């Protein structure tokens, strides 16, 4: 089994009102060094290993997990560590 870690982020130039709100709250708490916050998503997929695993993940990201109009994605494929 492989553990696939998918990160989804908003594309540069796409407004992120949620990130802006988080940034404002951080500043309220006194963290004035924070220049920008962008909120994204993190998904973990446990996938049976096979030859085309990377291509399959790309497809999943393009078809469903990310919206290519507004989001970028990146992923890593790792060996699943037994619990």
């Amino acid at each position, binding site marked *: 089994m492989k553990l696939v870690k998918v990160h989804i982020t908003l594309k540069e130039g796409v407004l992120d009102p949620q990130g802006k709100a988080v940034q404002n709250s951080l500043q309220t708490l006194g963290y004035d060094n924070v220049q920008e916050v962008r909120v994204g998503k993190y998904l973990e997929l446990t996938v049976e290993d096979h030859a085309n695993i990377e291509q399959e993940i790309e497809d999943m990201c393009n078809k469903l997990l990310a919206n290519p*109009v507004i989001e970028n994605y990146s992923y890593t494929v790792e060996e699943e560590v037994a619990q």
Partner: protein
Amino acid sequence: MKFAVVVFPGSNCDRDMQYAAKEVLGEEADLLWYKEANLDGYDAILIPGGFSYGDYLRCGAIASTSSVVSQLREKAEAGVPILGVCNGFQILLEAGLLPGALLRNKNLKFMCHFEELEVVNNQTQFTSEYQPNEVISVPIAHNEGNYYCDDETLAQLKANNQIVFTYKNNPNGSVADIAGIINEQGNVLGMMPHPERAAEAILNSADGLKLFQSMLVNWRERYVAGV
């Protein structure tokens, strides 16, 4: 004229949509559960608002992968008029039937109130009963209605006259004040405001009714001989 209203788990404007088409417009309108929906034989398809699949992942994303959306694609290709309102608009965008995406409202608030819209394109089968640049009052009810597309897409929308409705006082941060757009072919319209909630005077506005009347008039002109 026979309307199909596609119902997804979490749709909540389906009955309003059916009511507008059936009771106010006076035509036939069936509620079709997405799983067993067969869109054959319908003259127009209405995708209602709501929170399909609880807005999981992204609004409309999960619904856009259902098999009824494959049928929608075929019908869109075949020229059948398709109207998506609110979550219905989100589904059409996620399915790639319309360009762009919808983001969280700029002020991060769910907004539910009447907005003034301008009918910037009345040369469509959904808006032909409106006057050019008519200003109408239609309610919005959304959290993710902030229309976004890149500059290239926006230029295309403008060049092809695909922007149909704009907000007079942009409530959500939408690019170019966009409230509703149509596909290039002119048979798929998506919009955030709810015309079905403004279909008769008792609802404080009957301005949305002309949209349904436009669909009926254009259908009659096209398909009913001798009318």
